[in-house]
């Protein structure tokens, strides 16, 4: 399998596509950093008039803070991560089928699953490189520009953020490979991934609020609460929502709950214990999210694995 992995990785690195991904990644890192620095400049001083204290986790702000117009790196990855996964996987199997190379490949003394494992692992390696690159660029330049070194806890939180990002993009990679196994042409699989992306990133909240509006009456408090709870649970089908919620929590220690809270409850929460959540508690909060995302990623890959193993591969 190593020979396959090596070839796939070399293919990725040599391709124009990889160059495009790199450019996208660097642009996102640069632009979001610019945005974050602008945001930190104002937010870092706190807002005395509203009683908001300056946040102690300035370094993490580099990844979540924005100047109001340009999104932060975390939101950028939530949005563009799927496209990176798509570019790495949408033609993994079907283009080899169409070119007649898969037929020749499977005539070699290798197990069939080595083909799909090699492709997934090579794609995953590229994802790791890209995510690590983006985090390092933002950290490095940010450190240089702000002059504030990260604390140990901040470094740990950034690592967790990187893991979440990798798993998130790997899910889209798995989905792209799955569709490349199921569909005949690369164009079809690419379009389908884009459709799923649009659904999960943009339309899911419209759908959930539509259903919630039909199910619950907005006239009562319980109705409102029910609608909000339903909407949140429904939205969490989407890996994009899961990712956004979890990195929001990991990178912002002031986030104390992900559930629906009333204003009274919220006041209680903030008044009860002042300050921020320790890292273990933040992790506990998003643990189900991570498990869910890993399950989605493995699910996408497992289905493509099974379909591919049972598929009859014929000449072009």
């Amino acid at each position, binding site marked *: 399998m190593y020979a396959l992995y090596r070839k796939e990785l070399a293919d990725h690195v040599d391709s124009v596509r990889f160059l495009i991904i790199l450019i996208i990644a660097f642009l996102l890192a640069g632009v979001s950093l610019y945005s974050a620095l602008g945001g930190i400049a104002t937010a870092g001083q706190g807002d005395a008039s509203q009683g908001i204290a300056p946040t102690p986790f300035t370094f993490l702000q580099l990844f979540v803070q924005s100047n109001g117009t340009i999104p932060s790196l975390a939101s950028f990855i939530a949005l563009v991560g799927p496209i990176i996964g798509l570019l790495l996987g949408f033609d993994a199997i079907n283009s080899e089928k169409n*070119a007649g190379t898969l037929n020749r490949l499977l005539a070699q003394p290798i197990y069939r699953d080595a083909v799909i494992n090699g492709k997934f692992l090579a794609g995953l390696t590229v994802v790791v490189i890209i995510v690590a690159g983006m985090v390092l660029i933002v950290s490095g330049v940010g450190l240089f520009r702000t002059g504030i070194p990260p604390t140990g806890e901040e470094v740990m939180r950034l690592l967790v953020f990187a893991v979440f990002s990798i798993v998130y993009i790997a899910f889209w990679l798995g989905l792209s490979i799955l569709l490349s196994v199921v569909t005949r042409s690369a164009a079809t699989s690419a379009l389908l991934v884009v459709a799923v992306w649009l659904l999960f990133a943009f339309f899911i909240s419209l759908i959930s609020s539509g259903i919630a509006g039909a199910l619950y009456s907005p006239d009562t408090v319980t109705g409102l609460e029910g609608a909000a709870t339903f909407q949140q649970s429904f939205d969490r089908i989407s890996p994009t929502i899961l990712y956004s919620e979890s990195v929001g929590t990991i990178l912002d220690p002031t986030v104390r709950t992900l559930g629906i809270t009333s204003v009274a409850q919220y006041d209680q929460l903030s008044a009860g214990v002042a300050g921020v959540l320790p890292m273990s508690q933040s992790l506990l909060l998003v643990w189900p999210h991570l498990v869910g995302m890993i399950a989605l990623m493995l699910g996408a890959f497992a289905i493509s694995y099974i379909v591919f193993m049972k598929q009859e591969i014929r000449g072009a």
Partner: protein
Amino acid sequence: MGGKKDREILIRTDGLTKVYGNTIVAVSKLNLEVRKGEIFGLLGPNGAGKTTTIRMLLGMTEPTAGKAFIGEYDCTRNPIDVKRMTGYLPDNVGFYGDMSGKENLRFTGRLNNIPEKELGEKIDSLLERVGIPDAGDQKVRTYSLGMKQRLGIADVLIKDPHIIILDEPTVGIDPEGVRQLIEIILKLSHEDGRTLLISSHQLYQMQQICDRVGIFFQGKLVACGSIEELASESGVEQGRTDILDEIYHRYFERREQ
């Protein structure tokens, strides 16, 4: 050629059957034996089950019933061992267009666990052998069909197989290219002593190279033997230049009735 009859059987199928869906019978109860060193021709119209048979021999398609063996290995149970000793050139063989001919061969060599330091030399000698010694560094995208087919033969030979299976090797190739290809194929048998299974419907070419042929029709093997045997069986006079064509035609007519 008589000596080949006593040699060990390298390819054997035993009631091999493939049914697609529940109704489409691609191959029906095929019993076939190919001996070591033979060139065996699989003849038959399109869709007669030749490619399906080949794919079952390589363990790439699971038979509905029956068994296939290559050497001592069960093709369905030990596909890896089978593929280690068998080279397969599919019809419409594809290469990675962005890689050079040499890179493509190197990749196949690696998949076959050929030591890296032997590979370079081996690739050069194979390219020489198939007659494209200077094209090795070009991207395969720029290759003509004939060159691709030659690269395909080199690709098959890199694992030094005992058995070589060629699926429609001469389709779409110009006459001179076909002549050279046939020369290469004959050498693989006569000089190297390899066993070849070739599927084709180019009857005149097959007549020139095959020791024995099998004629497929609708998934069934309707005739099998040397050209002389089949000629006397079907009443075609020996020594005709289009003898295989005539034999094929007679069996075909017999089936249609």
